[in-house]
């Protein structure tokens, strides 16, 4: 391919996407072939469709995407309201539309729409539209909270939590300072630390204080923020003790699955055994005892990484993570090389979503993250999730293609 074409066509993203999709299809095949190949062919068909969709998005002029964002956002909000009334109830959640034999999950597309809406809002040329303006800040948070509230109503906590992943990176990209970022996240980190590892509470408090001092802002501001951090860490235990006992056990089951060995804990114990026993080279495709003996139910969706870890071993599993890392870096470099503020911000948002999915999903199967039911991008079986990630890839490619166009 000549360099002129490469200058416009993001071959790296396409190659990485095909690589990840291929590993995903192999894993779906291995996890489901004994029950017939229906799921595999469905996933294969939608992967091909997704690639076509991705290429099609590549050719949309950025101006249209920006103008279209508001309508796309409103459309998905309407769908999220509708699904509460006419959605199909699966496993206690009302989050699906049944559309000609396929389940469509509007919350997956709401992720894309919300990132686009937020980016479009913050990249507007209006003068007071800066993230440093408190009103703009609150409006931006509101844009995210509307779909989150609707998704929590389904209730699908896992997907709702995903929305928290892209707010701060997009804010940061749109102009929030590192100092403000630290001011926002340090109370959260310190509260979490105080709750799980109280012995590190004061150490963390001290470190954040020193970091903030290094920014050489006004001293009274830093002291004020440290007091907030201190009270956040101090009050979290008190707040927890005020919860009802059944709420406490529910929180504990998410954080520490082994407290519930026959429920969610069962899956985590089994998936750790599956991945751990895979070793360096893996047991070979279709040869994983844990996978093929069906120790983990529905392992073609959220627990698909077990299949890769057991049958393809450390080689396959770490290769997949490297592919994801490369894809994330490509998103970020596309974002920073773009003169288009809107698309750049959106790419940062998408990268955050993909990273969040990767860390939570893989982390859950290897026992370092709580069990939150979200799919592994491009790998887990699921039409809506697959297509929404393909849209994100298409938009990243579009950003690369139009990086020299201002808007």
């Amino acid at each position, binding site marked *: 391919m000549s360099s002129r074409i490469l200058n416009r066509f993001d071959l790296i993203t396409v190659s990485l996407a095909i690589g990840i999709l291929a590993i995903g299809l192999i894993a779906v095949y291995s996890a489901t072939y004994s029950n017939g190949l229906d799921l595999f062919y469905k996933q294969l068909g939608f992967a091909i469709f997704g690639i076509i969709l991705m290429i099609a998005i590549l050719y949309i002029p950025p101006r249209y995407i920006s103008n279209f964002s508001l309508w796309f956002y409103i459309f998905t909000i309407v769908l999220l309201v509708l699904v509460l009334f006419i959605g199909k109830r699966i496993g206690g959640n009302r989050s699906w539309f049944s559309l000609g034999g396929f389940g469509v999950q509007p919350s997956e597309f709401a992720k894309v729409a919300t990132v686009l809406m937020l980016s479009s809002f913050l990249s507007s040329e209006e003068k007071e539209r800066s993230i440093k303006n408190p009103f703009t800040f609150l409006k931006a948070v509101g844009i995210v909270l509307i779909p989150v509230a609707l998704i929590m109503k389904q209730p699908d906590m896992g997907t709702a939590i995903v929305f928290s992943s892209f707010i701060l*990176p997009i804010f940061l990209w749109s102009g929030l300072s590192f100092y403000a970022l630290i001011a926002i996240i340090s109370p959260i980190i310190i509260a979490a630390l105080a709750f799980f590892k109280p012995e590190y509470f004061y150490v963390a408090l001290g470190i954040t204080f020193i970091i903030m001092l290094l920014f050489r802002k006004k001293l009274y501001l830093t002291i004020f923020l440290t007091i907030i951090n201190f009270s956040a860490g101090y009050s979290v235990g008190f707040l927890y003790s005020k919860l009802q006992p059944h709420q406490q056990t529910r929180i504990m089951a998410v954080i520490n699955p082994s407290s519930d060995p026959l429920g969610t804990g069962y899956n985590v114990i089994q998936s750790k*055994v599956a991945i*751990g026993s895979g070793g360096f080279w893996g047991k070979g495709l279709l040869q994983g*005892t844990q996978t093929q*003996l069906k120790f983990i139910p529905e392992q073609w969706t959220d627990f698909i990484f077990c299949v890769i870890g057991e049958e393809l071993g450390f080689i396959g*599993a770490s290769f997949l*993570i490297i592919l994801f890392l490369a894809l994330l870096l490509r998103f970020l470099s596309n974002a920073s090389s773009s003169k288009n503020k809107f698309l750049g911000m959106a790419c940062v948002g998408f990268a955050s979503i993909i990273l969040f999915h*990767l860390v939570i999903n893989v982390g859950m199967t*290897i026992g370092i993250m709580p069990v939150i039911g979200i799919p592994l991008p491009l790998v887990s079986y699921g039409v809506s999730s697959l297509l929404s990630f393909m849209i994100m890839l298409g938009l990243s490619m579009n950003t690369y293609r139009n990086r020299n166009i201002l808007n």
Partner: protein
Amino acid sequence: MELTGKKYFLYGIAFALSFLLIGRLIQIQFMNQEEYGKESQKNSVKKITVTPARGLMYDRTGKLLVDNKPSYSLTITPAQFDTSTILEISQLVDMQSDEIKSRLSEAKGTNRFNPVKIKRDIDFKVISYIEENRDKFRGIDFQVESLRTYPNKFKASHIFGYNGEITEKLLENQVGSYYKQGDIIGATALEKSYENYLRGEKGFKFILVDVRGREVASLNNGNSDIKPINGTDLILSVDAELQEYAEKLLGKRRGAIVAIDPRNGEVLCLVSKPDFDLSVFSGSVDSKIFSMLINDESKPLFNRAIQSKYPPGSTWKPMMSLVGLASGVITTHSTISCEGSFTWGGRTWEDHGAYGPISVVTALEKSANVFFYKLGLKVGLDNFDKYSKMFNFGIRTGIDLPNETNGLLPSEEYYKRIFPKGWSQGILINLGIGQGELLVSPVQLAAYTAAISMNGLYNQPHLVKKFRNPITGEEEKNNYASKTIDFPQSYFDAVKKGMYLVVNGNGTAKNIKNSEYDISGKTGTAQNPNGNNHSWFIGFAPFNDPQIAVCVLGENAGWGNQFAAPMAAAIIVRYLSKNSQDTWNENAKIEVKD
């Protein structure tokens, strides 16, 4: 540029988190690989489904009719199987080793860790031997199943029905996800109708298994297990002794017998001949025997009592009388002249006698065709349909067996469809004597006879009287529908009097008169284009306090009073004498009459 710094900051986060994941993978796949490897070799918790025992069936007196016995099926798990032992296995279970190989190759392309069923109903000695030599026979295992057994001499194959492995189609279309591949499900008759009662609820056992799938221990000492709930027992309304007697009477002939308690719709016996041996379907079904049953031209799998439809012949005349009375065309005393034949539209219909002007009572006693030819024309198709439908002709009786036929009650639309160029009222002449397009099933006739005997009380026929919880012994009644056909009592009195005289007067079935039990009824001889006439009898007894209503059908068995009437009488006497009398005489010479 400000963004560059932020870009590297985000790069850093992506790197850090990715290497956190890879670090953890190194930890569990390198450093602890041995430990997890052993774990995966050894103790993995596996969820095993425990199938509950299927509910049993008892007769109305508490006699056990359908029982279970445990049986063992030999399975081979291909992934673990050591093929060098195949010869020894084949000798143990008395199979050719090629046969075992072909079973295994059928399962190729599916999960090699799924056990493949090789043979059902294995001898216990073989099991103990293999159990003792576990290490030699890798991948060989057993599944405990329960098989149906039928401890009585009679067959009742069309009442009980059989079970079989769930079909792929049923599995796909099921509501919910209870059934899994390989599950046993009721396939026909009561086993199918009451599947939800009989099947019980599956339980689950959590066991620790090693990589060969061998059980090492139970999880949590079995405290986490979910116990299966055994199926509910059915207490049938069937009288086992009467059923046995009725099956003996029909013997090798083709036909059906249905007897109902008219007071509540309980089915006392239900026979369809030829029938088949249900134990053929218990355990692994021999495909040769199965295809023989399917292809048998006498259709033994077909339940003639509820699935077949025939012209009712003269057994229709009580219905026709009620249609005439209810539509006001005749009264209980008005007469119609019967000349021995009837000419209409240039065609002549014959009768076996000339009676002059007679009332409906005499017309029934003599089975006078001309009376009913004329009555048919007078009432018209609309009345004919309207009142016949009240007795569930043209619709199902609702008996608790699957695939009941509607029969055929021809309507105006029906004739428009089959005679698009128009039709003459002449069809009503044939309908008047239960011929023509009209078709009914034996159970429809039995339920209608019961309703006449009860002066219009129509009870839904049913075979299951009660449900019994096998653990607590608690019983629960089976609900059935009941309706009243609201005609003046004088109509039923006239029809019942006619039916009384058929047997006890100078009627067509005086050969079955019984001094002890006053039987009333009606013979029928249905013309049939495919061979000899079908012989019908419907009847009930005792006249003043009906306890049993019967319908007997003999396919191609000739005149109604020749075959069906004596058999119905024998059933009635047998039941009312509490199984002590037997009036059946195979070789009785009877003057033919309809």
